[in-house]
């Protein structure tokens, strides 16, 4: 599996995400935001957490209009896999690859702690390594993770089984306790919690490993 991890000015989880992909067995290329193209033969693009462009204007807004973002959109439209974590999720909603928006946490505080997630569907490469309804403990670290969408979009996400993870104890006011959602073709996942921060015993937990292993397994079959 070939993975590309993008770095924007202000990204700070890019190396962690690359390490997590490597630990799962992927060959990882690091890509700069000014690059107009992804490396040849990339299977999955990782959009990392952080504060791209200082969160100026809106979180993820400027990154979503960077040169590499066009390449990521083309990759996704061709059926390529994309994983956006935290700021990466914010970038994905700003590109329009995923619906809805991420607003300021309902309690207005930056939240940084491990939280329990319920695996809402196993019908995706990202969640195939979990059991449906399983609780996975994954850290969150965000100020703007409050997922909001109109009633129609929320109903569609439920009807199409596109909610990947829900918070067991909603920390940020997200509608329907949504922590992560999938694209219509189930190959783009955006999530606020950081699975790359839960892939080794030294992290204090390994519940994120199954996500990377699941992607690895799915891509080995294609």
């Amino acid at each position, binding site marked *: 599996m070939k993975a590309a991890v993008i770095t924007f000015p202000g990204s700070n989880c890019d190396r962690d995400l690359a390490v997590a992909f490597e630990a799962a067995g992927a060959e990882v290329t690091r890509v700069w935001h000014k690059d107009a193209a992804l490396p040849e033969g990339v299977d999955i693009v990782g959009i990392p957490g952080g504060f791209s462009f200082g969160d100026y204007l809106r979180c993820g807004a400027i990154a979503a209009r960077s040169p590499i973002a066009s390449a990521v959109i083309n990759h996704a439209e061709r059926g390529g896999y994309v994983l956006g974590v935290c700021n990466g999720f914010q970038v994905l*909603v*700003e590109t329009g690859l995923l619906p809805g928006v991420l607003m300021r946490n309902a309690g*207005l505080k930056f939240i940084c702690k491990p939280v329990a997630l319920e695996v809402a569907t196993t019908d995706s490469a990202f969640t195939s390594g979990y059991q449906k309804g399983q609780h996975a403990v994954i850290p969150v670290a965000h100020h703007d993770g409050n997922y*909001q969408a*109109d009633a129609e979009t929320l109903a569609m996400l439920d009807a199409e089984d596109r909610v990947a993870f829900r918070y067991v104890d909603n920390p940020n*006011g997200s509608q329907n306790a949504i922590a992560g959602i999938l694209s219509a073709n189930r190959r783009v996942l955006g999530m606020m919690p950081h699975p790359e921060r839960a892939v080794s015993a030294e992290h204090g937990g390994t519940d994120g490993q199954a996500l990377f292993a699941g992607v690895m397994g799915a891509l080995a079959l294609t």
Partner: protein
Amino acid sequence: MKARVHVMLKTGVLDPQGEAVRHALGALGFDGVEAVRQGKVIELDLAETDRAAAEVAVKAMCEKLLANTVIERYEVELV
């Protein structure tokens, strides 16, 4: 020509920051503030001198970048 863009959350979209400001005003003794909505003002200096063309261009900027029309509405003012 200068343009001023006002970006506000749409009616009905929760504004936790506006709500926090409302609480703070209440704590300062400013009674009777029933709602606070917080938005942004973006000022642009444009080379364009034609008003109609400027308005079209700034609206395109709003749609593409300056506002997230899922949750925000915008108004363009040419000054």
